C-alpha cells in the first residue's frame, strides 16, 4: 500500500473502479441477501435498516463511531434505508421469506445492538483519510486483484491486490464510481458499500443464522419475526444470535426457544439464505480467471443484489474477524457464563466474561472444537470436524473467580470408580439410596464407602451435593495421599536452579550482569502457595561455558564456593549440601555470589558452550535432592564444545520447500530426547532463555523444554539497552508464575469416545498418560478424541481431565476438570455448536506437528483439504440446496477460512526470506502449547487505531482488520499478536500527535526502530502507554514495542502481520484464499 501511495491518485482510480464495481456487486449482492443476516452487526444494520427497525439503532450507533466523517454517518442511515429496500427485495428474490426471517431476527437485535457503530467506525476512519495515497494504493490493488485470482499477481503489486480490494471497499473515495453503484443498488452512493462491507462480512455468516429462523417465521413482519426468530436463531447460530441478543428479550426468547427440533428444521431455510448471500462470492469463482466478469452473471443470479451490476468480491463483504469478535463481546461480555447447562458454547476467547462454575469446567480450563458431537463415527468422519479439547489445567483465573476448592478425603484418598478409576464428579449417579454410585464414564457400579455415605433427596441427588465441590462443581482439587507420590513418599518442596551461560557472548552482551542483578531481587518473589509467608522453593546456581560451575551457597559460609565440573561427558552433581538453599537463609551468600559472577567471568575468552550436560547436571541435582523442580537456563550459542549433545551448524535454507525441509524441525540428535525422558522421570522442568547471535538450532535445543513442559524464550541479538525490559519482564513472570511439578494428566471420557492424540509440551511414555515435569498456567494441552462406539444423545459425552501434580509448596494434589458435551444425530447441530478459534488451535498444532514428518506443502494441502471438507459437508448436508456457485459458510465457522489462511501463511508453514530456521522452530514449539486466546491473536493480530476514539475513552479502541488498506496514513496504530507489538505511524499523522507521543516535532525525526515511548504528561501519551501496558498484561510474554514509520524499512516487518493481505512470501490474501476455498468446496461437491 504505502509503497504505492506515491502513485497518481486519479488514473488508477478510474481503472480500478470498473473492476471494482463488479466485485463489489458480487460480494455485495451476496451480502445483502446473506449479509444482512450475517448478523455481524455492521452488516446487520445495513440490512436491518431495510427491515425497518435496524435503521434507528444503526443511527444511534453511528454517532458513537465518533470521529467518523459525516459521510459515514450519512451512510449508515442511507445504508439502512437502502437495505431496508433490499432486504425486502432479497427476501423475495432469494430464499424467499426465510431469508427475511432470518434477517429480521438478526436485525432486530442488531438494531438495538451496537453493531452498527462498530461497522461504521472503520469506515469512518477511512473516510477521513481518503487521501490520495491510499486511493492509489487501492488502485494498484485493484488492478492486481483482477489478475490475482488466477495466479500471484505480477510485480510487487502482489501486495496490492488484497489491499486494493480492501481499500476499495474501505475507501469511499471512489465517490463517482461508487455513487453510481450506490445508486444502482439503491444504496446511498458509495457510502453504503462501506457499511455494507462490515455488514457483508457479517452477512456471510449471518445469513446462515438468519436463515433458520426464516423458515419458521417467514413472512411475518419484522417485529413479530424478531421475537420469534431470535430464539431460534440463537440456538442455531451459536455465536451470532445469542451474543447479538442485546435485547434481553431476544436472548430470553432464545433460551427457551432453542428446542433442538426447531434448529434442525430451521437450518434448511437458513442455508437458503446463505446461498443468496453468497451468490456474489460464487460469482467470482466460476469466473475466477476473470472474477469481475462474474459480477454480471452474478447480479443476475441472486436477484437481490441486483443493484450492483459490476461485481467483485468486496473485502468488506466477506466475514470479518473483527466484526465477529466485536459482536460476541457486545452480546456475551456482559453476563457471566454459567456452566450448568450441558453443551453450551462459551463466549469467544476475545470476550471478557465471568464464569460461574455450576458443574462443568470453565472454558478457561477446557474449550472444545464442538460442544455437540456427532453420535457416530460415521457422522464425525463425514463432517471432518476434528473433535478436540484444548485443556489448560492450571489456567489462571481473573481475580473475580474463585480458585478450585481443595477437597480432602483423608487417608482413603479421593473417591474413584473401581474400574475406570475416574474421580468422583457431579455426573456420577448415586443409586440404591446413596449406597452405591454408577460411574458416568464406564457405567460400573461402585459401593459408596461408609464415611462418604449420604442420603439422596427426591430427585436422586445427594443431600450434600452442594456442600461438596466434587459433587457440584466442574473443577476442584483433591489432596493426594501418599499412594499418589513417587516412591510412596510425600514430595519435598521443589527447587529452582538457575543455570547461566558465562561464555564470552553472554558476558559481552551484558546479559550475565543484568541477570545477576535482577535475580537478587527476583528471588524474593518465588511462587508461594496460598498465604505462605515465604516460598518453600529452594534455589541453586550453576554457571557454565564448556565446563560447569556449581556454587555452594550454604548460609553458614562467609563466601560462596565454586565447584567446577569439567567432566561434561559424564555429568554429576559435585555437592549436595549447600547447593539448593532457602533464599532467606542464604541471602547474604547468594547476594555475594550474584555480585561476583559477572566479575569472575569478566575476562573470559571462552566461546564454546555445552548444553546437554547442563540440563543433565540440573536434573542430577534434583535427583540428588529428591525433589522436583525447574531449571532456568540462560544460553547463548550453539553448543559445539566436545560433550554429549554437541551440535553442528546445519542451518540450510536451501532445504526449504524440499522434502527435506522437515529435518530443519527435527532435532539433530536423539540425545536430547532421552535426556528429556530422564528429566520427566525426575520432575525436572526446563525453561530455556536463548540469546543467540546466530543459528543455535532451536529445533534441537528446545526438545527438552518441550518435553518437560517448559518454555523457550528467544532474544535474538540480545543487547541490554534494547532488550532488557523484555527479558526481565519475561523472566520475572516466568519465575513468579505458579507451577505444578512432576505432573501426570489423564483425560477420561465416557464410553463412545476416546482421547487418541495429544498436542503440547509434555512427554508421553504410554498412550494415555500425559507426563509433565512441570506445568504452568500458560501451558495448554490439546487433546483429540475419536469415536470408538456410538454415543447417546441423552447421556451426551463426558470428559474428565485429572491432573496429578506437586504444588510449589510441595503438596501433592489432583486437579479435576469435568465437562459434559451434547451429542447429536444431525450434522447441523454439530455445525451450530462449533468454535472456530478452538478449531484453529487444534489445526495449527496438528499442522505444526505435521511438519516434523511431512513436507510442508503436503501439510498445507492437508489443512486446506480438511477445511474444504468441513465446509463442503456443511454445504451438502446442512445448507439448503442452491446454486453450486454459492459459498455458504456455517455461522460458527465463517471465520474458518480467514483464520486458516493465517495459519497457512504463518512462518512455519510458509517462511519468508527474512525468517530464520531458528525462528520457525521457535514459533513451532511456541504454538504447540498455546491456548485458544493465544493462537487466536497470534494468527490474526489485533490492529488498533489509536487516534480514532476519543482520548477520554478508557476502553480499548475497536480493532480494525489486519489489512494495509485499513491503515490511514494520518493515524497511528498498534498491532499485537501476543509476541510482537508494533506502533505504526502514518506518514501524514498530525504533528501534534507526534509531538505528544514522541516529544519530537515531526514525523521525519522519529528514529527508526524506536522501542520505547517517552513518558509524557499528556492525555494521548498516557493513553497509548496505558494501552500498551494493558496489552502486555494480557499476554504471557512481554511484547517489545517497535515503532514503525510508514514507508520505513521496518515497515516490511510490520506488513508481515497484516494477514488479510497477500504476503511477500506468497501467502494468499484473504479474498483470494476465500475464493480458493470456494473452488475446493465446489470440487468436493461436484
Amino acid at each position, binding site marked *: 500500500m504505502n509503497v504505492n501511495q506515491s502513485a497518481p491518485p486519479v488514473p488508477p482510480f478510474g481503472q480500478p473502479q470498473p473492476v471494482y464495481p463488479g466485485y463489489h456487486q458480487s460480494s455485495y449482492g451476496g451480502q445483502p441477501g446473506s449479509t444482512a443476516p450475517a448478523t455481524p452487526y455492521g452488516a446487520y444494520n445495513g440490512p436491518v435498516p431495510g427491515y425497518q427497525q435496524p435503521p434507528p439503532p444503526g443511527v444511534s450507533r453511528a454517532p458513537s463511531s465518533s470521529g467518523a466523517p459525516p459521510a459515514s454517518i450519512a451512510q449508515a442511515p442511507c445504508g439502512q434505508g437502502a437495505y431496508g429496500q433490499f432486504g425486502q427485495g432479497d427476501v423475495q428474490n432469494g430464499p424467499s421469506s426465510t431469508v427475511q426471517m432470518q434477517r429480521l431476527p438478526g436485525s432486530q437485535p442488531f438494531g438495538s445492538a451496537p453493531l452498527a457503530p462498530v461497522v461504521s467506525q472503520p469506515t469512518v476512519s477511512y473516510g477521513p483519510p481518503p487521501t490520495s495515497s491510499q486511493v492509489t494504493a487501492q488502485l494498484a490493488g485493484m488492478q492486481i486483484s483482477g489478475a490475482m485470482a488466477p495466479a500471484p499477481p505480477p510485480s510487487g503489486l502482489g501486495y496490492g491486490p488484497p489491499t486494493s480490494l480492501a481499500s476499495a471497499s474501505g475507501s469511499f473515495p471512489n465517490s463517482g464510481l461508487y455513487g453510481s453503484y450506490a445508486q444502482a443498488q439503491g444504496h446511498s452512493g458509495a457510502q453504503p458499500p462501506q457499511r455494507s462491507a462490515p455488514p457483508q462480512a457479517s452477512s456471510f455468516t449471518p445469513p446462515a443464522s438468519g436463515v433458520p429462523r426464516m423458515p419458521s417465521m417467514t413472512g411475518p413482519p419484522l417485529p413479530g419475526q424478531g421475537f420469534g426468530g431470535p430464539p431460534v436463531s440463537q440456538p442455531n447460530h451459536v455465536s451470532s444470535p445469542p451474543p447479538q441478543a442485546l435485547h434481553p428479550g431476544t436472548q430470553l426468547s432464545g433460551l427457551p426457544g432453542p428446542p433442538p427440533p426447531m434448529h434442525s428444521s430451521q437450518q434448511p431455510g437458513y442455508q437458503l439464505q446463505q446461498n443468496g448471500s453468497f451468490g456474489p462470492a460464487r460469482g467470482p469463482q466460476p469466473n475466477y480467471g476473470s472474477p469481475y466478469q462474474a459480477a454480471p452473471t452474478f447480479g443476475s443470479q441472486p436477484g437481490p443484489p441486483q443493484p450492483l451490476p459490476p461485481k467483485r468480491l468486496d473485502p468488506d463483504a466477506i466475514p470479518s474477524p473483527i466484526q465477529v469478535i466485536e459482536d460476541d463481546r457486545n452480546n456475551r461480555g456482559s453476563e457471566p457464563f454459567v456452566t450448568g447447562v450441558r453443551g453450551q458454547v462459551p463466549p469467544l476467547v476475545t470476550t471478557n466474561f465471568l464464569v460461574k462454575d455450576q458443574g462443568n469446567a470453565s472454558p478457561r480450563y477446557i474449550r472444545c472444537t464442538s460442544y455437540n458431537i456427532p453420535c457416530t463415527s460415521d457422522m464425525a468422519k463425514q463432517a471432518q470436524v476434528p473433535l478436540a479439547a484444548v485443556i489448560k489445567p492450571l489456567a489462571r483465573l481473573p481475580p473475580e473467580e474463585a480458585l478450585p476448592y481443595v477437597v480432602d478425603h483423608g487417608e482413603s484418598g479421593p473417591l474413584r470408580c473401581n474400574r475406570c478409576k475416574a474421580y468422583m464428579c457431579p455426573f456420577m449417579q448415586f443409586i440404591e439410596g446413596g449406597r452405591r454410585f454408577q460411574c458416568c464414564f464406564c457405567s460400573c457400579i461402585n459401593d459408596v464407602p461408609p464415611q462418604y455415605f449420604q442420603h439422596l433427596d427426591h430427585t436422586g441427588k445427594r443431600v450434600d451435593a452442594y456442600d461438596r465441590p466434587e459433587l457440584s462443581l466442574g473443577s476442584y482439587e483433591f489432596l493426594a495421599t501418599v499412594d499418589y507420590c513417587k516412591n510412596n513418599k510425600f514430595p519435598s518442596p521443589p527447587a529452582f536452579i538457575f543455570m547461566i551461560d558465562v561464555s564470552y557472548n553472554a558476558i559481552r552482551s551484558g546479559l550475565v550482569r543484568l541477570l545477576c542483578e535482577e535475580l537478587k531481587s527476583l528471588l524474593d518473589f518465588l511462587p508461594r502457595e496460598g498465604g505462605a509467608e515465604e516460598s518453600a522453593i529452594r534455589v541453586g546456581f550453576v554457571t557454565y561455558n564448556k565446563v560447569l560451575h556449581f556454587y555452594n551457597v550454604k548460609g553458614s559460609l562467609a*563466601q560462596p564456593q565454586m*565447584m567446577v*565440573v569439567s567432566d561434561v561427558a559424564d555429568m554429576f552433581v*559435585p*555437592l549436595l549440601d549447600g547447593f539448593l538453599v532457602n533464599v532467606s537463609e542464604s541471602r547474604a551468600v547468594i547476594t555475594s555470589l550474584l555480585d561476583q559472577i559477572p566479575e569472575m567471568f569478566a575476562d573470559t575468552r571462552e566461546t564454546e558452550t555445552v548444553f546437554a550436560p547442563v540440563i543433565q547436571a540440573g536434573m542430577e541435582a534434583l535427583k540428588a535432592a529428591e525433589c522436583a523442580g525447574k531449571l532456568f537456563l540462560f544460553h547463548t550459542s550453539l553448543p559445539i564444545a566436545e560433550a554429549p549433545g554437541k551440535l553442528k551448524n546445519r542451518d540450510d535454507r536451501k532445504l526449504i520447500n524440499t522434502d527435506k525441509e522437515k529435518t530443519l524441525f527435527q532435532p539433530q540428535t536423539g540425545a536430547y530426547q532421552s535426556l528429556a525422558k530422564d528429566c520427566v522421570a525426575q520432575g525436572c522442568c526446563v525453561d530455556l532463555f536463548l540469546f543467540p547471535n546466530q543459528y543455535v538450532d532451536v529445533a534441537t535445543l528446545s526438545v527438552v523444554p518441550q518435553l518437560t513442559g517448559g518454555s523457550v524464550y528467544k532474544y535474538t541479538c540480545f543487547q541490554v539497552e534494547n532488550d532488557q525490559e523484555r527479558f526481565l519482564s519475561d523472566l520475572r513472570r516466568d519465575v513468579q508464575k505458579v507451577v505444578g511439578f512432576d505432573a501426570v494428566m489423564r483425560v477420561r471420557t465416557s464410553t463412545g469416545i476416546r482421547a487418541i492424540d495429544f498436542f503440547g509440551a509434555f512427554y508421553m511414555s504410554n498412550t494415555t498418560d500425559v507426563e509433565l515435569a512441570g506445568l504452568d498456567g500458560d501451558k495448554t494441552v490439546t487433546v483429540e478424541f475419536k469415536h470408538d462406539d456410538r454415543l447417546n444423545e441423552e447421556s451426551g459425552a463426558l470428559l474428565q481431565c485429572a491432573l496429578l501434580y506437586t504444588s510449589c509448596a510441595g503438596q501433592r494434589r489432583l486437579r479435576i476438570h469435568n465437562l459434559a458435551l451434547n451429542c447429536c444425530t444431525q450434522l447441523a447441530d454439530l455445525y451450530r455448536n462449533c468454535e472456530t478459534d478452538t478449531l484453529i488451535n487444534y489445526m495449527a498444532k496438528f499442522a505444526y506437528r505435521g511438519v516434523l514428518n511431512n513436507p510442508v506443502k503436503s501439510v498445507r494441502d492437508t489443512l486446506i483439504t480438511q477445511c474444504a471438507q468441513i465446509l463442503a459437508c456443511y454445504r451438502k448436508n446442512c445448507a439448503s440446496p442452491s446454486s453450486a456457485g454459492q459459498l455458504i459458510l456455517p455461522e460458527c465457522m465463517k471465520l474458518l477460512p480467514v483464520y486458516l489462511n493465517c495459519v497457512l501463511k504463518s512462518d512455519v508453514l510458509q517462511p519468508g526470506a527474512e525468517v530464520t530456521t531458528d525462528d520457525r522452530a521457535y514459533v513451532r514449539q511456541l504454538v504447540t502449547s498455546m491456548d485458544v486466546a493465544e493462537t487466536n491473536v497470534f494468527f490474526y493480530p489485533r490492529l488498533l487505531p489509536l487516534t480514532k476514539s476519543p482520548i477520554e475513552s478508557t476502553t480499548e479502541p475497536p480493532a480494525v482488520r489486519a489489512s494495509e488498506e485499513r491503515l490511514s496514513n494520518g493515524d497511528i496504530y498498534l498491532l499485537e499478536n501476543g509476541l510482537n507489538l508494533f506502533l505504526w505511524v502514518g506518514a501524514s499523522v498530525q504533528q501534534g500527535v507526534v509531538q505528544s507521543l514522541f516529544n519530537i516535532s515531526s514525523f521525519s525525526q522519529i528514529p527508526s526502530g524506536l522501542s520505547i515511548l517517552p513518558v509524557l504528561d499528556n492525555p494521548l501519551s498516557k493513553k497509548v502507554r496505558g494501552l500498551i501496558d494493558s496489552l502486555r498484561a494480557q499476554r504471557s510474554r512481554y511484547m517489545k514495542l517497535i515503532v514503525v514509520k510508514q514507508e520505513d524499512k521496518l515497515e516490511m516487518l510490520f506488513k508481515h502481520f497484516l494477514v488479510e493481505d497477500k504476503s511477500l512470501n506468497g501467502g494468499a490474501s484473504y479474498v483470494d484464499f476465500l475464493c480458493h476455498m470456494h473452488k475446493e468446496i465446489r470440487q468436493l461437491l461436484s
Partner: protein
Amino acid sequence: MATYLEFIQQNEERDGVRFSWNVWPSSRLEATRMVVPLACLLTPLKERPDLPPVQYEPVLCSRPTCKAILNPLCQVDYRAKLWACNFCFQRNQFPPAYAGISEVNQPAELMPQFSTIEYVIQRGPQSPLIFLYVVDTCLEDDDLQALKESLQMSLSLLPPDALVGLITFGRMVQVHELSCEGISKSYVFRGTKDLTAKQIQDMLGLTKPAMSMQQARPAQPQEHPFVSSRFLQPVHKIDMNLTDLLGELQKDPWPVTQGKRPLRSTGVALSIAVGLLEGTFPNTGARIMLFTGGPPTQGPGMVVGDELKVPIRSWHDIEKDNARFMKKATKHYEMLANRAATNGHCIDIYACALDQTGLLEMKCCTNLTGGYMVMGDSFNTFLFKQTFQRIFSKDFNGDFRMAFGATLEVKTSRELKIAGAIGPCVSLNVKGPCVSENELGVGGTSQWKICGLDPTSTVGIYFEVVNQHNAPIPQGGRGAIQFVTHYQHSSTQRRIRVTTIARNWADAQSQLKHIEAAFDQEAAAVLMARLGVFRAESEEGPDVLRWLDRQLIRLCQKFGQYNKEDPTSFRLSDSFSLYPQFMFHLRRSPFLQVFNNSPDESSYYRHHFARQDLTQSLIMIQPILYSYSFHGPPEPVLLDSSSILADRILLMDTFFQIVIYLGETIAQWRKAGYQDMPEYENFKHLLQAPLDDAQEILQARFPMPRYINTEHGGSQARFLLSKVNPSQTHNSLYAWGQETGAPILTDDVSLQVFMDHLKKLAVSSAS
C-alpha cells in the same frame, strides 16, 4: 684402622656405605659360596655437616659408556694434565678450568678424604618445591579438625616460594584453585571414574599451559614458567587464602546411611593428583601428600565396598584368594606410582584410622616413589601431629632434610656387576656393561630413580662378582664402586653427590680368614633381611622363612668351626656371632610374620624396613631393651623373657613402638603412690628415667613411634611380651628355677631351641 669394626664405622660416617663384606672374594665361584652376597647399604644423602658442596660441576670420563666421575682413586698425570679413569682405564684430558692442577694444587675431588663429594649444578632452572595436599574429608569432625590444624600449621613451615596445592576428596574429588580472589573455586571430579592423565589435564584446563611451559623452559631458564598453574601457587601468595580454605573444609556432605562406609574416592583423588603434577611439573621435585582416614570404597583403587558388614580383607582372605578388590586396586596404585616416579614426584600416605585403610594396595605409591607412609589411629593424636611436623624438619643449614627426584647411578670396576637394589626406588632400566643378568631386588639396571629421599633413606645394593676363578686378580688389586646421586636439594639446587669406594680383593681359598674378619654381620643381617622381605612381597611366608633358614645354615656351615655331627662343638667367630640371633628375631618380626598383623600393618612395617638405615633396621629386627632398677644405672639387657623382672622398669624400642614396662613390684609401688612421698624421691626418679630416655628417642625418630606406657599385667604389655625371646613359656615355666622373668604364653620356639637346631643342622653332613 685398628679393627674392621672401626674401619666399617669410619667408612659409614664418611661415605654412608656399609658392605656385607669388606674384603671381596676374587672369583665368582668363591663369592657365591660366601652365602651372603656382596652387597652394601648406601645412604646417599647421609648428613655430612663437614662436607661443604663444591660449586662446580664434576669432571666426567670421556668414554660414553663409562662417564665415571673423577675421584681420588684415579691416577693423575699432573704434567700431561691427564687422568685415567679407574673404572674403564680411559685416559682423559682435564678440562681447561683445571689448567693449574698440580700435586700440591689438587681439586677437592682428588683428595682421599673426599671419597664422597657433593657438586652443585648451576645450570638449568631452579624449580620450586611442590607440595600437593590430598585430603580425605570423610573423617570424624574432631579428626578433620585436627588434620586441618596440622595442615594449616604446615603452611608456616614451608619455604615461601614453595608451591602448594590442595585436593580434597570424599565421594567426589575436588581440586581447589588457589589463585582466585573472593569465591573459592574448585574443580570437581566424580569419584568413580578413572581418568587418563590427558583427560584430567583437559578437564583442569592444563593442556595449553603445559605445552607453553615446555617450550618456554629452554628459552627462559631463569624464570618460573610454572606460576601460571592455578592449582599450585607459591605459599607466600596464598597463605591466607589457603588457611581459610582449609578452615572451611567441611566433612564430606554426602549422606552415609546406617551400616555403610562413607564413599571415599582415594583412587581417583590420587590419580588426579598424579595427573595434575604430571601435566604441570614433569621432572620436577614434588610431594603428593595423601591424608586418608579410611579405605577407598569406590571407583578405581577401591579396596572394600561400602557395606560395613563386609570387612576389609585380612591375610586370611588374601591367602584364600578372597580379597576381590585387591588385585585391581593394587594395579591401579602401581600404575599411579610408576607414573609419579617417572615424573620424579613422590607420594606420601598418612593413614589414620582404627581399621585398615588399604595400605597394602597403596604401598607401592610410597615404596616406588620414596614417599613416607605413616599409619596412626587418628589425626587427632600426638603421634600423627609430631610425625607430620617432623617431615618439615630442617638441617643445620636451615634446609629441609628432604630431597627430590634423585637418580642413583652405580658404576663398578670390571670384576663386579650390579645385581639389583632394594629400597624406595624404581628402576630406570639403564642397561650397561656393569649390569648383571642375575637379579637381586630391582635389577637389570645401573640407575634407579628415588623420587623422595632424606638423610636416612637407605638403599640396599647387591653386586655380583664376575671375575672368573682362573683369572686371578693381582695381589693388592682393589675393586671400586662409584655411586652418583643426582638430586634436587630442598633449596631447589640440583646437586650431585659422588661416593667412590674401593675394597681389596682376596682369594677366598687362601685368604678366607681375611674375608671372614671383614664380614659386617650387621650389614649382612639387614641386607639379607631386605632380600627376605623383598621375597615376602611375592612369595608365601613359609617359603621365605625356609629360604632364610637355609641361607643361615649354609653360612654356618661355611664359616662355623665344628666337628661333623657334633652340635656341641659348633663355634662361630666374633664377626659372625650375632648373625644367627638377628635371623632368629627377623623370623619372628612383623616383616616376615603376618600373624597378628593386618595386611596394612605388614605393609607399613615393610615399607619402613626397606628405607631405614642400618641402625634403625637393626632395631626393627631386634628391638633394644633397657632395664632400669635401683641396682645400678640403666643397662641394656637381653631381649628375653628372663629380663622381665618384678623390680625393674623396662624400656623397649622396636622402632615402631617405645614401650615402658613397669615390673610387678614397681607397678604396685607406683599404685601405692610412693613416688609422691618425699622420702621416696629416688623412686620418683627411677620412674622418670625411662620416660626421659624415651623422650630422647621420640625426639629423633621418624616416624613417631607409638609410645606405650604400661605395667605388669597391663593389656599393652603384650607389645613387650610379643617381642622378647620366649625363653620361658607356660610349657617351660620354672624350668630354670630361681628368680626368672615372666613366662610368655606362646608356642614359639625360643632362641635357645632355635640355636640348638641350627647347630644340629649345621654340623649335619646330610644337608
